[in-house]
Structure formats: structure tokens, C-alpha cells
């Protein structure tokens, strides 16, 4: 037996040697996998880059498998996704893996970027590694956007419309850009084909090549050592110091440091699988039929914050902000290591860096949260869905109740809520009469202003009177009605001819 075992081992070794003698790749690969790395970076904080790579491989594999069934044609794509979801065995699970894998990949790439930024790992000599990483982040986001188009449902269709509308705002070449993005005069077959080409050929090619360059540079410069307050990066000394540290404390990356990467990657993969299994695939939502206008298009999670920001920009500065800010932001990320390539690495000595990360993270979080419930959008069905609360109708005059009918019928509820039900575009009306006088309400209703359309053409005088009478009854929990102090001032000065401004009596509500 022993001799048989020995013979098998010998055969395996000689087979390996035959292969390696001709291929010559295993030796260098094993050598670089086992390269010594400073012991202080064998940390759970250094596992995000490898996890992102593992997710990329998952996306490539699941993407290829989905392409076996998916039909990248405008008249079949939506149907082929339904087919995948319902008729192909485990098709739904592959779609779910690919969809959740994409969300996880964006999240992990962002966490990786924040970690590298806070640890100052982008500084000398790893500036180019960071720059390539920024490009990889943009490519990842590009995959997410083009992937959302692959779903080719209502959201994808109108999302393309939003993309084309943004492109149309570019001065001079806007029209050409729209046609380049859309691939023709309208969103259709050509649009899906070119986004499929981007999603399946162009961006993945760039992404895989970029990851290769990124990894090559990581090996070339070594994984950055754990930052210490006061240990300054200087171009003159850093590489010698890093080399000395590696010689003094070095451990082989595989297996001494890599086991943490492997455990984290497994945990991430397991999370993707769990999300895919329990929450299922994303969509597709309604068919990509532009004549179905009963829709409220929304982008995928990663782009909700942009969707929210676009709701808040005033029209006068919207186009410049839309076109200039992304350029500045990307340029800022790209040149960051070139202007801050030396100095302190530790976050405790870089308060501005910590502040920047905090502000950006909170901003993205807030805008994403707003994007999930879009308070700026009218609730199109509110006027027929939510009745006027009965407590606002009890003990009211017929005229006031008629006003409540006007309020419902004129779609006021689409933007104004009563008792928590209705749109949030405008202020809630539950206590409107305690904030505005009758005159102010009339003026606001008829002339609009402050983001409210004028209803002068949509209301006749009797409707206006009824509506305003009803609104005047809405004073929350019996708050005092609003009073126009200046009117009192005017009346007093005209009637009494008093030179001094009248003092409001203490009993008068202000």
C-alpha cells in the first residue's frame, strides 16, 4: 500500500513539474501569495478588498448563467425575466443572487474605500492604487446602473428617460449625447442593446482589467501597514521603513493573514445567499410600456440619494449643479492622493478626513432615506383614497362641509395631508388656520406661490369661499386662530389717529 501511495504522490509531483516547467505560473503565484506582510495589517479591518473581489467573481458567474436565458431585446427582455422568475428552475434564485450580489458589492466597495481613506492607505507609494480604485468604484456604479436597465421594466424605462434628460442638459452637445445614450430618437431596442453591451462586455472587461492592475499594485507595494499616530509618511523614508517593518515582523500573507479574508468573504457570500433566498429577486416591476402612466418610477437603492437630491435643487441652479458637481467630486477623489500623498496616516490626527467621511455618510444616508418615501412627490391617489377625517366634519356648517368636499375634489390631498393621510409636498393642513389668516389662505389658494400652483383658474368663487371656510375650522386641537397683527395696527392708526403704535393687549392671541 505504501508503495502505491508513494507512486501516486510521485506521479502527481512529476505531473505538476511537467505542467509548471511549461506554464511557469504556479511558482510566482505561490510566491506572491506567501509574500511576507507586516503582522499589524493581518486585521479584520483589511478584509474588504478581497471580499469585493469575491463578489465580483460571484457577479460574473451568476451573470453568465442569467445570460443563458435572458433575451436582450426590447420586446422580449421583460418577458424573459418573468420566464426566469417563474418557469426556469431556480431562475428566481440566480436573479436574486445577482441582484443582491450587486447591492452587497457596492456596499463592500464603499466600505473598502472609507477604510482606505480613514487609514491614509492612499498615501505614498499607493497613490495610483487609490486612483485605479476610484475608477473601479465608478465602474461598479456603472454596472449597477446598466444592470438596472437590464431589468427593462417601468423603472428601467423611466430611469433611462431621467438619464437622457440629464444628458440633454449638457450645453451644446446635449442633443448628440441624448442620441448617443439612447441609440436613436426614442428609448427602445437600440437603447437596451447598447446598455446590454456596456453591462456585459465593456464595463466588465474594464472592471476585470482594473482589478488586475489594482491587485498587481497591492502586491508591488505591499499591503499598507497599520497607521500609528505620529508615524509620518515621507517619500524619502517610507519605503525603507515599510521594508524594515516587513523584515522585522513579517508573516506570510497566505495563510497567516489570509484566513481572515477567507472567513469574511464566506460570511459575505452567505449573507448574499440568505438575502437572495429570503427576499428574492428584484422585480421586474410593470412592463416597459410608456403609455402606462400610472407609475411612480424610482431608481435602485444605490441611486436613491441622487433621485432625492434632484428633487431639492432649485430650477435656477439645477443644471449647473447636475453637471459640475459630479465632475468636481470625481476629480477630487482622483487627485486626493496627489495633493495629500504624505504626512499623517492615522485618523486621530486627520480630523478633516473624519469630518468629511461623517458628513458624506450622513448626507447619503439622509437623502437615501428621503428617497425611500419621496415626500416631495404628490400622492396621486390620495384625493380618492383618504376620506376627510370625521372629526373635522363634526359640528360644522353646511358651507364648511361643502368646503371639505372641494378640498377632496380639487386634489388638495395629493400634496396636503389631513390627520397624517395625504401627500407631504405641502404642509399638513390640520392646524392651518392657526398659522394663516383667512386673507392669507385666500391669497395662497388663488395665487399659489412657495411651490404651490395657483388655483384661481380651477376654483369658482363659491368653491373658494366654501374651501376657505372649511380651512378656517382647521386649528389643530383648538389652537387660537392666526391673527394679522399689521391689520390691527392699520385699523388702530386710522381710527384713533394715535401716533404711537398700539400695544397688543395681553388677552389678544399673537
Amino acid at each position, binding site marked *: 500500500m505504501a508503495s502505491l501511495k508513494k507512486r501516486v504522490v510521485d506521479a502527481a509531483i512529476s505531473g505538476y513539474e511537467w505542467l509548471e516547467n511549461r506554464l511557469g505560473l504556479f511558482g510566482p503565484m505561490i510566491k506572491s501569495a506567501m509574500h511576507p506582510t507586516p503582522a499589524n495589517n493581518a486585521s479584520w479591518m483589511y478584509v474588504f478588498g478581497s471580499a469585493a473581489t469575491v463578489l465580483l467573481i460571484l457577479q460574473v458567474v451568476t451573470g453568465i448563467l442569467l445570460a443563458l436565458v435572458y433575451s436582450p431585446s*426590447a420586446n422580449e427582455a421583460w418577458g424573459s425575466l418573468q420566464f426566469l422568475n417563474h418557469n426556469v428552475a431556480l431562475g428566481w434564485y440566480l436573479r436574486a443572487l445577482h441582484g443582491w450580489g450587486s447591492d452587497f458589492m457596492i456596499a463592500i466597495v464603499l466600505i473598502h474605500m472609507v477604510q482606505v481613506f480613514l487609514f491614509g492607505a492612499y498615501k505614498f507609494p499607493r497613490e495610483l492604487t487609490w486612483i485605479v480604485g476610484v475608477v473601479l468604484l465608478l465602474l461598479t456604479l456603472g454596472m449597477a446602473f446598466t444592470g438596472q436597465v437590464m431589468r427593462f421594466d417601468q423603472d428601467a424605462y423611466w430611469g433611462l428617460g431621467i438619464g437622457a434628460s440629464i444628458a*440633454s442638459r449638457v450645453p451644446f452637445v446635449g442633443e448628440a449625447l*441624448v442620441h448617443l445614450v439612447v441609440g436613436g*430618437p426614442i428609448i427602445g431596442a437600440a437603447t437596451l442593446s447598447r446598455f446590454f453591451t456596456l453591462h456585459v462586455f465593456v464595463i466588465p472587461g474594464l472592471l476585470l482589467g482594473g482589478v488586475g492592475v489594482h491587485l498587481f499594485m497591492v502586491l508591488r507595494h505591499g499591503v499598507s501597514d497599520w497607521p500609528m499616530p505620529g508615524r509620518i509618511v515621507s517619500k524619502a523614508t517610507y519605503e525603507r521603513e515599510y521594508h524594515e517593518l516587513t523584515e522585522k515582523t513579517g508573516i506570510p500573507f497566505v495563510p497567516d493573514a489570509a484566513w481572515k479574508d477567507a472567513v469574511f468573504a464566506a460570511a459575505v457570500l452567505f449573507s448574499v445567499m440568505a438575502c437572495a433566498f429570503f427576499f428574492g429577486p428584484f422585480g421586474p416591476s410593470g412592463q416597459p410600456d*410608456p403609455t402606462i*402612466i400610472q407609475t411612480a*418610477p424610482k431608481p435602485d437603492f444605490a441611486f436613491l440619494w441622487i433621485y432625492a437630491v434632484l428633487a431639492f435643487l432649485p430650477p435656477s441652479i439645477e443644471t449647473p449643479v447636475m453637471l459640475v458637481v459630479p465632475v468636481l467630486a470625481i476629480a477630487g477623489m482622483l487627485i486626493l492622493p496627489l495633493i495629500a500623498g504624505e504626512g499623517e496616516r492615522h485618523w486621530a490626527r486627520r480630523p478633516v478626513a473624519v469630518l468629511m467621511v461623517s458628513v458624506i455618510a450622513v448626507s447619503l444616508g439622509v437623502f437615501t432615506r428621503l428617497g425611500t418615501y419621496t415626500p416631495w412627490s404628490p400622492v396621486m391617489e390620495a384625493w380618492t383614497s383618504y376620506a376627510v377625517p370625521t372629526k373635522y366634519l363634526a359640528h360644522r356648517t353646511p358651507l364648511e362641509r361643502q368646503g371639505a368636499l372641494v378640498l377632496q375634489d380639487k386634489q388638495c390631498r395629493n400634496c396636503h395631508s389631513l390627520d397624517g393621510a395625504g401627500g407631504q409636498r405641502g404642509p399638513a393642513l390640520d392646524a392651518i388656520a392657526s398659522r394663516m389668516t383667512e386673507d392669507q389662505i385666500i391669497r395662497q389658494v388663488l*395665487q*399659489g406661490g412657495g411651490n404651490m400652483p395657483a388655483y384661481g383658474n380651477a376654483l369658482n368663487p363659491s368653491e373658494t369661499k366654501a374651501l376657505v371656510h372649511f380651512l378656517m375650522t382647521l386649528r389643530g386641537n383648538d389652537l387660537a386662530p392666526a391673527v394679522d397683527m399689521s391689520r390691527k395696527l392699520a385699523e388702530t392708526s*386710522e381710527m384713533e389717529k394715535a401716533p404711537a403704535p398700539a400695544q397688543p393687549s395681553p388677552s389678544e392671541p399673537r
Partner: protein
Amino acid sequence: MSELLHSPGESSEVGLPPQAKAAAHSRRVFLFKLSVLLNAAVGTVLAVPIVGYLLGPVLKKNSETGSWITIGEVDAFPVGETRLVDFASPVSRLGDGQTAKVACWVRRISAQQFQVFAINCAHLGCPVRWFAQSKLFMCPCHGGAYYEDGSRASGPPERGLFEYQYKIAGSSLSIHAGNMPTLATEASCSGPNTGARRMTEKELVQIEPASVETRSKSWPV
């Protein structure tokens, strides 16, 4: 013996470094440079049609896009009402499927006067919905609102709705449809020419919201 082993080009500089060898072979260096030039020329000739193919959708003249298309009988639109009309895009291509369908809002002002609006919001292109009771178009995406004549009422849009040119031929209503309307491509659907009777002067009188300052000026202090 050594005569046989030497390659025809191999000569005395065996011991020289490669750069020096190359310098000595000025003819080969020249030929290499020539081959680079040759490939640059071939590459250029190759690239021109490829770039032309890539930019095909861009190079098409905007004015050539689209055509007149009948969207219905005039009598189907009651005066004073605004209705949604579907039609097949005249510029659709093979495989467009449902995306070849287009919708527009048709407002009949009087017997001979119409307004035909694109459903695409002027902000970012989402489909606006008409509410007859409040006489407003509302956009579901970012809350843009427009009055019945298409002018901007509120929200982020910087202008009113895009309008199609229309004409009435006999009893049928036709519009000129082509490009999907955006801020840059609306020209083809709303040009200044042809028989379309567009309402250039908006009837609606925009009353500026009175501010506190202007009001207090006229009052005695």
C-alpha cells in the same frame, strides 16, 4: 564551421547590448519605424468607419427625425377637455416592442384650437398625469406641476410641458412626432414653423405673490 552556424544577419557585434545592436542596424530600425507608421495609417483608415458607426445615432440630423402622424378624429376630443392618446411612434424600429408606443395629452381649447403635450415632464422626463378637477398636470417623480395650458406651475421644472406641432386635416388630428422630448431634443416636436397654431402667449395671468414688503409700503406707518 562557424560560417554554417551564423544566421545571415548575425555579424560581429555578438557581445554588444541590444540597444547598441539596434543602433548598428540602422536599416532595421528604419524599417521598424516605417512599420509603425504603416500601422498608424491602417489604424486610422480602420477607425474612421468604426467611429462613424458608433456615432451613427448622433450624426443623424434632428430635423430629419419624425413625421406627421394621425392620432385620432377631431370629434373624439370634446372642447375644454384634456385626454390621453396613445400612438405608435413613427420612428420605431425592429424589436422596439412596447417601447415603440407613445402617449400624449391632447387639450382641445376650441373647435379649431388644440394643444398637444408630451407626457414627459420637462424636469427629468417622467410621465405627468392630468387632473381635470384642479386643472393641473402632476409629475410623480419630483413633484413638478403644470397648468392646463402646459405652463409651469410649481416644482423643479424650469419650463412648461413640451408641445407637439399639430394640424387638422379634414376631420383628423395629426401631430409631428419623432424624438423623445428632452430639453435638448424638443426642437423637433415643437418648432416655430408650419401650420401648428401654438399658443405663444399664455392666457393665464401670473400674479406675483405679494410679499410683506410691498404691502406694507402703501400703508400708513
